[in-house]
């Protein structure tokens, strides 16, 4: 039945968009002609009403003035380079060249001897030429030659490499990805100087033609995962990709869950670490967010800094993070459950002080908690959206009004304010903004369950959550993988971060192809006799 509906809907709304239709009129698989004027007429028709496209025609000082035309987009190319290296060379410098009148392969001769650029592509097809122009290359047509020359002259205004906004560290590199794919390649390549680091690029988006790149370390990565990523990317059929979030939603394993099964990160060092552990990275042009797959839930709780700090510090932070994870998810539901159903569970003095605080509050704990949590989420969202100066004002007003005035007006109890504040701070302490997002959402149903069934409701909710988490997979890897299915070997990097010299192997799920990561017995052993003097006697 549904299949039938699907067909009808498809007929009515989804028009088959093959490339030429989606791109616009005037583009076909026409080949480059030897007649320069014909080519230019065609291109001018294609780029009709595109004021940023520049057409420049001139004569080269060779072969008695060959007519040459170049096409590029103003702002996407390095004009200085074009003037100096192309136009000037062709108009003046080639005159000194002792050119013989008869050249058997003019296109090859031009690209080998005349056009002084590092990257030159020869193109037969006008459609390719158009695409080259659109991606910032300068396309050169020569009268009498049935090839177009695409010169890599891309140079546009771009943001410098700055510190990433989402994942800050105290110790560690401060570089973040930028919107430029080439820069992002460089940032990763500078960290992994190996020919095993591969990047495969494809264009996704019928209109935007966004470059999307799959990166992995050959020999470490599981090839099946790479194939799967490639397949899923190739299946995408959409008009435009503006951010890696578009792609994320197309390649997820579980599209209906609140948990991210693809990790988005701005940190090149994190990507490099992931590649070394056998993950696959997906870079998308025009966004600083790279995608790492497969990802597990525990990985969302790990920050790259965990690996730069000494291991006792890192382990301590990990422990704190598990505490905050639980607080962020469970503090309000537990508060509701205990104050509503299980007052007897509190030690008597605590119970008395909470009861005293709640005295005079007109709402049940659930309504109180919902009120506060919603207010907090609103404040948080306002803080993100508003201009920075105003955002601060909002947060001050929010803190004063919500925190102080609401309590003194007797609308909420001070205990509730503490709980909400604790929850908020805890959820900020989680390293992955996107992982913390799912907890933010799940808190609300858990609160409702706590209000309906008390602790049992919370338990049932957690069990449901656990079932859900256990059933998730990210590119074939179970979502809570080092925990269940338990891999004792991989627990080294779970609750604790063991010392580097003791982590011999890559994670079993992604790096089993080349499990050994380092040599054994690398624990530092200082020599008995101190080299720095001081006999000790």
């Amino acid at each position, binding site marked *: 039945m549904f299949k039938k509906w699907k067909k009808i809907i498809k007929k009515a709304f989804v028009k088959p968009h093959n490339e030429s239709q989606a791109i616009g009129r005037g583009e076909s698989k026409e080949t480059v002609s030897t007649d320069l004027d014909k080519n230019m007429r065609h291109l001018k028709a294609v780029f009709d009403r595109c004021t940023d496209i520049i057409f420049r025609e001139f004569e080269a000082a060779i072969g008695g003035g060959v007519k040459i035309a170049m096409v590029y987009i103003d702002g996407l190319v390095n004009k200085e380079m074009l003037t100096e290296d192309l136009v000037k060379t062709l108009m003046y410098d080639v005159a000194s060249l002792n050119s013989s009148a008869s050249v058997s392969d003019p296109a090859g001769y031009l690209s080998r001897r005349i056009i002084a650029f590092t990257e030159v592509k020869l193109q037969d097809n006008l459609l390719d030429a158009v695409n080259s122009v659109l991606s910032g290359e300068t396309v050169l047509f020569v009268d009498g030659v049935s090839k177009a020359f695409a010169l890599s002259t891309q140079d546009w205004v771009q943001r410098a490499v700055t510190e990433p906004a989402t994942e800050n560290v105290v110790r560690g590199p401060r570089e973040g990805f930028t919107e430029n794919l080439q820069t992002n390649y460089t940032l990763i390549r500078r960290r992994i100087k190996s020919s095993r680091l591969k990047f495969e690029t494809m264009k996704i988006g019928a209109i935007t033609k966004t470059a999307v790149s799959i990166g992995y370390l050959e020999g470490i990565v599981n090839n099946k995962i790479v194939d799967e990523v490639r397949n899923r990317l190739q299946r995408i059929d959409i008009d435009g990709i503006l951010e890696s979030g578009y792609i994320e939603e197309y390649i997820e394993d579980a599209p209906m869950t609140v948990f991210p099964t693809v990790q988005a990160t701005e940190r090149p060092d994190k990507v490099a670490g992931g590649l070394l552990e056998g993950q696959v990275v997906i870079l998308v042009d025009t966004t600083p967010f790279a995608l790492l797959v497969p990802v597990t839930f525990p990985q969302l709780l790990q920050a790259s800094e965990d690996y730069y700090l000494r291991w006792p510090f890192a382990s301590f932070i990990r422990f704190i993070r598990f505490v905050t994870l639980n607080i962020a998810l469970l503090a309000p539901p537990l508060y509701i459950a205990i104050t509503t159903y299980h007052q007897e569970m509190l*030690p008597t003095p605590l119970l008395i002080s909470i009861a005293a605080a709640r005295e005079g509050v007109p709402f049940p704990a659930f309504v109180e908690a919902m009120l506060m949590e919603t207010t907090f989420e609103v404040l948080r969202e306002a803080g993100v959206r508003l201009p920075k100066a105003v955002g601060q004002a909002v947060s001050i007003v929010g803190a004063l009004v919500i925190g102080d005035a609401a309590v003194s007006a007797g609308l909420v109890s001070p205990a509730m304010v503490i709980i909400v504040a604790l929850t908020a701070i805890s959820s900020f302490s989680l390293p992955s903004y996107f992982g913390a997002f799912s907890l933010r959402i799940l808190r609300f149903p858990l609160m409702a369950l706590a209000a309906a069934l008390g602790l049992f409701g919370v338990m049932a909710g957690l069990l449901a959550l656990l*079932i859900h988490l256990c059933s998730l997979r990210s590119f074939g890897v179970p979502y809570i993988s080092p925990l269940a299915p338990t891999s004792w070997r991989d627990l080294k990097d779970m609750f604790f971060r063991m010392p580097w010299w003791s982590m011999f192997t890559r994670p079993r799920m992604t790096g089993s192809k080349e499990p050994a990561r380092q040599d054994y017995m690398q624990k530092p052993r200082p020599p008995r006799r101190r080299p720095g003097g001081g006999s000790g006697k």
Partner: protein
Amino acid sequence: MLATAMGAINAFLLAKLAGLFRGRTVLGFMEDLGAGVSAKVVALIFTVFSVHLASITLRDFAELMVTSFYEGTPLIVFIVVMAVLAYWLAYMGIEVTARVAQFVFPLIIGGIVLLNLASLNLGEPGNIFPIVAKGVSPIVRGGVTHWAFFADVAIWFLLIPHLNSSVKKYTFLPLSVLASGLLLVFTIFCIILGIGNRIAVMRIYPYLTLIGEISLVEFIERVEGFFLIIWVASNFLKIVLFLYAGSISTGYLFRLGDHRAVLLPLMIIAVNLSVLLFDNYQQLRNFFRPEVYAVYASIIQLGIPVYITVLWLFRRRSAVGTAN
């Protein structure tokens, strides 16, 4: 009470005996032996048994929730919530179930051990005595009761083929029974040490009473909440396994391609049974008396294994006979 150790060893021997010659499900094994009809009968017994036990577990669970934590809440609320969750997990399949169990298992065991340790400072050594005041017969009686509780182990007959081949099939079952038996002995020891024999016998839930008494450094007290977590999680897993095993045997009975299809009906039957079977908790406890429950459990715990052993011996001999 201390005779639980005996019960554990009983079950240990049984599990070892039963685990010795089985690589497939009990049903597939019997069919291979050429006993198709009796395989169907055994499947029927397994279905009835697992659905029945699931419903009893549901009821038992809900009774405790209502009597100890939620006075006035209808039983059916807890039963239905639990059953729906169990259905969902069983539907997800044995792999997800195993992962959930793996995640929950350390919590359960750790929780029990922690609670026991916390209760140790309540202990009065004098509570242990008298040890064998009324002769051996109450010990045997208690042992049989607890032995019967290990009947659940028999459903592993159905689950064994789903195990990863790396698991040592013939040792994990007896070992796990032994471990749980030891944990039980430890717990009962703590109960007797903590609140004394007389109170323990009078209370319906002696362990809960014990936990209620726990008070450490004037602050950690009334930790029944932890008990609640353990209780919910462990019962939940038990119900899921019963449902799953029930669906496998039903699937075999009717030769279904996908045994998950019967999960929902089985769950609904279990929910209904759990409400209908007993009028009150006294009846349920009555059912657990050794005269009733041990006899009932021995059908699956002793009867079927013995039958299969005999069948296997007989068939093997005849097979050898025809080969010669």
